[in-house]
């Protein structure tokens, strides 16, 4: 019974991801999200608005700071989970 449920869940997630990939832009089109104005805006205004000469730091710590926040939360959570699984109990 559990195996059947696992197979069903896997198939469901696969179908959902395939449906999502149908909305991706076609290969080789000009106006994809990668090529819109955001790149140009970052290159022209990042130093002026964030004060960082390294544009990458300006983007990941200012424009998209919550992304980096969740990234460090993921590191923290993984450290806690590994600690729960692997840490030895103190022998008394």
């Amino acid at each position, binding site marked *: 019974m559990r195996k059947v449920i696992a197979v069903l869940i896997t198939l469901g997630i696969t179908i959902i991801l395939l449906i999502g990939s149908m909305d991706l832009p076609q290969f080789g089109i000009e106006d994809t999200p990668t090529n819109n104005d955001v790149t140009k805006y970052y290159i022209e205004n990042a130093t002026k608005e964030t004060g960082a000469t390294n544009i990458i730091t300006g983007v990941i710590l200012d424009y998209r700071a919550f992304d980096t926040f969740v990234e460090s939360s993921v590191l923290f959570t*993984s450290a806690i989970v590994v600690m729960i699984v692997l840490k030895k109990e103190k022998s008394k």
Partner: protein
Amino acid sequence: MKDKILNTVVGNLIPFIQIFGIYVILHGHLSPGGGFAGGTIIGVSFILYRIVFGKEFSQKKLKFSVLLRFVTIGVCIYGIMKGYIFISGGNDLHFPQPPLGTPGNIMSGGFLLPLNIIVGTVVAVTMYFFYCLFEEGEI
């Protein structure tokens, strides 16, 4: 490991590794690098310390409770700082914030420098924890 040459060489080498890591973190908004890269370098120095000087000695220097406190308080401060900035900027409220300064100085860029330091701390301590847990099961 009880080897006098190894202990001396590593004891002289670790401060330089840590200074390089701190340099990479502090210049994160000026040159390539930043919190993740610099934190990895500092974490590597911790791991080297642990390998060479042994478990008992490094447990005295790098206490588990202190390191865990660094990480948790750091993540909390990051969330508070960035939430403050987004509320003040996103709603056009313009709360007081540190000045941007002239680009190129270390003390510039508003909140970028403290955020880089926090990310570096979290990455360094997490790398050290992972090494200790996978190798010995204790921190």
